[in-house]
């Protein structure tokens, strides 16, 4: 006897497979998004909130909402404008020179010579040493009374009087920029060297056969192929240097007379010397906006370069 069973109708899932797949994909992002929220977004929101309050830690009785009061004060603060200008000199002076010398070092290290591996390792040394230690080393080198630099220059007969490199407003910024350049050259050298190694030799050979000289090969092959790396490396480095306060803090503390005070060290000074967290918050927000504006413009200007 044959029994017939009625086939159950298949219930349609509440969420389609396509949507479910999408949700699963997003659920994998949740931990990272939460981390980002807790460590980046929330602090930014808190800093913005802080900047809208009179928040001097030793005056808890004066804590109140003041709207844009801290921003108005900032616009009227001549030291802020000085620090912003100093930041521009510090960032672009450092990054441009780091890039030029780093590129030169990368081109040299690309050549085959005996002991290349050792030289490449040694080139990394300034980058490996912690920033604070670099600051201390150079502070001693620059020391006017018993530092090596003055001593060598006087012995060589290139200088008659000792120069107070870090105590003179005319020399201090140049001296800290030079130290930062020394420290940052390996970063560009290694990044660009990696890029150079990825350039196919055939291109150079073909160009050589076509009669292209060294400069033409550099201009028409090396530079275009390295552009994506150059854009990313310089953008990263500019943002980094803008916020990098260690060297200045150790070497000059922003002095003499604010000659090396950049906005990030000024923010620290306001927060931890004056305990004025409201004003320090406003300075931090402005720093963030300046960097956001710069990054947007920079990426727009170099748009499409990565795909070159």
């Amino acid at each position: 006897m044959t029994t017939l069973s009625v086939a159950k109708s298949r219930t349609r899932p509440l969420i389609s497979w396509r949507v479910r797949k999408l949700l699963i994909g997003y659920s994998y992002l949740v931990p990272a998004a939460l981390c980002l929220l807790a460590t980046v977004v929330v602090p930014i929101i808190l800093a913005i909130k802080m900047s809208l309050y009179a928040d001097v830690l030793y005056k808890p009785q004066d804590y109140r909402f003041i709207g844009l009061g801290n921003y108005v004060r900032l616009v009227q603060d001549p030291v802020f404008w000085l620090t912003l200008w100093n930041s521009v000199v510090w960032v672009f002076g450092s990054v441009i020179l780091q890039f030029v010398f780093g590129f030169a070092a990368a081109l040299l290290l690309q050549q085959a010579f005996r002991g290349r591996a050792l030289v490449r390792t040694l080139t990394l040394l300034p980058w490996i040493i912690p920033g604070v230690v670099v600051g201390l080393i150079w502070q001693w080198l620059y020391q006017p009374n018993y530092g090596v630099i003055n001593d060598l220059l006087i012995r060589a007969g290139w200088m008659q009087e000792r120069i107070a490199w870090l105590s003179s407003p005319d020399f201090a910024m140049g001296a800290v920029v030079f130290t930062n350049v020394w420290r940052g050259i390996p970063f560009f050298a290694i990044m660009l060297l990696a890029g150079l190694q990825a350039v196919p030799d055939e291109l150079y050979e073909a160009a050589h056969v076509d009669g292209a000289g060294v400069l033409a090969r550099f201009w028409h092959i090396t530079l275009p192929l390295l552009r994506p790396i150059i854009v990313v490396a310089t953008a990263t480095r500019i943002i980094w240097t803008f916020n990098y306060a260690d060297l200045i803090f150790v070497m000059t503390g922003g002095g003499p007379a604010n000659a090396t005070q950049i906005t990030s060290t000024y923010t620290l000074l306001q927060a931890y010397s004056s305990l004025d967290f409201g004003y320090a918050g406003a300075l931090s927000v402005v720093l963030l906006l300046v960097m956001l504006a710069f990054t947007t413009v920079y990426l727009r200007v170099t748009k499409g370069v990565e795909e070159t």
Partner: protein
Amino acid sequence: MDERRSISRRKLLHTLAGTGVIAAADLAWWDAPYIGPRKAWGAEPVRFQWSVPEPTRIALINSLVERFNQSQKDFAVQVEYVPQAQARQKLISSIAGGNPPDLCQVWDNWVGQFNGMGAVEDITARAKSWKHFADVAPTAWQTVTISDKIISLPLSVTLDGIYYRTDRLKELGLKEPTPDWTWDEFLSLAKAFTKADKNQYGYGMRGSGTWALLYPSEFAYANGAEVLKDGKVTINSKEAIDAVAWYVDLALKHKVTPPSAATDGFVEIVETFGRGVTSMYQHNSGSAGQQKKNVGAGNFATLPLPIGPANKRASFWFSETLTMFKGARNKEGAWQFMSFMLEEEPSLKYCATLGLLPARKSILEKPEFAKDPAQAGFVNSFPIGIVSPYLAYPGWGGKIDSDGVPLIQQAILGKISAKECLDRFADILKKEMS
């Protein structure tokens, strides 16, 4: 065998044990070898932040903490060493985060700010019933008292004086300065010491850090000026301007300071003196120990600050304090350790090792301080000691660092006049008087 000459085993053991006890008793207790911590099960921890971690101080504090932990079984002090540069930041963060240490070692110019934050424990009752209350110098109590509340114990006190090289004096055939010397004599000596072609300068001026502004302020007092008078800021008075102009002229006009003066901080003024670049500098007794190693105890001495045109002089008192926080979890343990540190032997050991002056009068009279030529200038400065006027308002300490120091640096460099420097600084102080 003659029994009178033979020693029984029991007698030998007794003799050895007796010798050991005498030897141990003869050892200063802090020099006794550390055997191991006494087991103190259930001892409550006391978190203690220490902010000047250099080798001598670390060894000293470790030793004192071990002694305290061994001397009783209820509390176990745990030291948290923080570099001085980060100490203030770390304390502020921990106070704001609601997790301060039980106790910390800080200078009194920070305590006002912490007190303003409502973070410091009022220890008036404990201090007044403490057995050594009357033995602590009244001015030392003033440095740690705000609105009639005692908020710290003064571990040591400092007064500024002038260090000078006695060997250089002899070498150059110069007359030994006397404790009642004047500005003119100070300047003449600075000029005589200066041989720029040999990289030698008369005076190691401090241009960096809080004291870059406090030192010229002391000179201003010698010219009859005051920072605060009848509740009003008077740091830009004519007397103050004249004094600061005279002070910065040491660098600008007379060139008796090293070219790096505008950024020379504590390390630099101590180092340049130690290396023979400068022959005088202004500091408290805290670097006397360092100079004994650097130039030798017999090659330098100290003097009170010189007398100014107003026939006056003043040296600012500061205290290195032990401060307990309101948020401390173990206030009794913190107090026990604070008061232990001001007992005679720990205080004597601490101050004598580091070249600081004890806050307790009975300890200060000991020969370690009263008869040491390196300390003479500071001990003799007690009659001219006044509490730093910059402790008057909690916001002033921070403003000296953020605004005052850049201003005095500009004056030292000749970028602005002494008048402009003090007028601008006075405006800043006025805004912080609430």
